């Protein structure tokens, strides 16, 4: 074969391969539109939240009014959880959410996952539960003692307070909140030390782990303001840019009072 002819043949093969791959891409694009949308939303915002200064003393809880609760904490005394600081000053239970920069459509997307708020050993697990507006969540009890679950949102802001009982073995309560609210206090009147929060936000959110680290998933590329909320220290904001394939980062430091 002459070299020119060979070159021609190669060219034709390349062209065919190119055409096929273009067609394949088109097919993928057409057949899996949902997939391509989520691919666009694969950005992230990550960071850590720290406490600057000595962690405040968290009082021990006297549960003597309920022998069941006392028994659960025989070997691990319970403490208040208003400020939970881990190794290296990481602040736990801080909720991070995007307060500016999301389009209305992005902000109104509701995750299908149902976060769970458990009443365990006469404490709320987790102490702070973040969720999206209209996202369904569950309240369950693991305890062999009666609790009442009493969220106290501001009714003038759109969320209505309610108060339901949960005796041992009671089925989970499923509910959701209509309006954004940072944050809704939750209490149990029977066990007055039980106190937690529902944090209701629009759009993607995250809660810090015991090291103070967080990752907000599913953030489309763009410029955002991220807000960090902590029940004792209030809020802080930071500007973050998320590029395609490059997560944004935002670290926060709250000053100990």
């Amino acid at each position, binding site marked *: 074969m002459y070299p020119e002819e060979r070159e021609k043949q190669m060219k034709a093969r390349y062209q065919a391969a190119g055409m096929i791959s273009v067609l394949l891409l088109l097919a993928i694009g057409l057949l899996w539109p949902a997939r391509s949308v989520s691919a666009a939303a694969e950005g992230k915002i990550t960071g850590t939240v720290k406490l600057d200064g000595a962690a405040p003393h968290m009082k021990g809880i006297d549960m003597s*009014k*309920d*022998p069941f609760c006392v028994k659960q904490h025989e070997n691990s005394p319970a403490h208040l959880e208003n400020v939970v600081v881990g190794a290296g000053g990481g602040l736990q239970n801080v909720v991070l959410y995007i307060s500016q920069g999301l389009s209305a459509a992005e902000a109104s997307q509701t995750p299908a996952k149902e976060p769970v708020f458990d009443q365990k050993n006469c404490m709320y697990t987790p102490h702070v539960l973040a969720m999206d507006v209209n996202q369904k969540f569950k309240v369950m009890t693991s305890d062999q*003692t*009666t609790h*009442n*679950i*009493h969220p*106290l949102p501001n*009714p*003038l802001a759109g969320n*209505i*307070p*309610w*108060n*339901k*009982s*949960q*005796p041992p073995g*009671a*089925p989970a*309560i499923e509910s959701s909140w209509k309006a954004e609210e940072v944050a809704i206090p939750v209490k149990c*009147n*029977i*066990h*007055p030390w039980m106190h937690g929060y529902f944090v209701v936000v629009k759009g993607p959110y995250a809660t810090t782990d015991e090291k103070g680290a967080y990752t907000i998933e599913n953030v489309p590329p763009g410029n955002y303001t991220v807000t960090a909320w902590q029940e004792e220290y209030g809020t802080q904001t930071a500007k973050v840019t998320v590029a395609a394939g490059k997560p944004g980062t935002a670290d926060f430091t709250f000053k100990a009072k």
Partner: protein
Amino acid sequence: MRRMMLNGSLILAALVTVALCSLSWGQATKAEEDQRLGMESHIGKLTGHATSAQGNYRRYCVGCHGELGDGEGENAQWLEPKPRNFTLGIFKCRSTTTGTLPLDSDLFDTIGRGLDSSNMPSWNPLSAQERADLVAYVKHFSARFVTEKPGAPIEIPKEPALTAERLKAGQEVFQRVECWKCHGPTGMGNGPSAATLTDDQNRPILPYNFHDGRRFKCGTTDEDLYRIFMTGLDGTPMPSWSDNIKPDEAWDLVFYLRSLQPMKSKEKELARQIGLKPGAPAAAAPAAQQ
């Protein structure tokens, strides 16, 4: 002289401005509420109109519940428990589920009945039409009555016949769902959690003592008692039990609670006959704490 006049007019102008500002600031909410003055109430055949109740509200209600309906009337500071803040749309006495608006008839009944152990008297001396008008007026204070519908009223099956088995079963329900945590092992309102209870405004509040013979806040009949614990008393620590007590068990509990009250009743008589003592049926009885 001229300078003094100038000064005087300046001060006057300043005063007028301040007065106007405070007026318009105070009326920001009032104006909003006034837009809802077309509010109606429907109780049976009666239709109440908020506009018709303005006179009666100013005469009888404003002193405690306040001009804006926020419970900040001039007498409020001397009262305990505090007058209801109508702007929140949260009411104790409902036939509807927790976290929902009451029916018009619930508000009508509350106005007629008054609230025992509070400063709210019965307003039955007013005509039924006047009370229906007041219901519409109470509703007009909260935007929730425009944007939301009242909840579905809970169903109350017909009261079954009282039997010794039902009375004992009622005692078991009291024990199982732990009414005693607040109301005390024998229903005296002295349970382990009683001392620390607070209402939604964080003010101390006491659980009901079944032995002192006071009327319930939300009605005195057996059906009222059934409704009280099933729907709960919103704004207070009393939760709703309708998810966890079945209708049949609820009637058992009604019978048992009746047997605790000091008044003469068929339940009390039966309890005496079968020797049913208030408190835990088994040895699991927790001791009352101060």
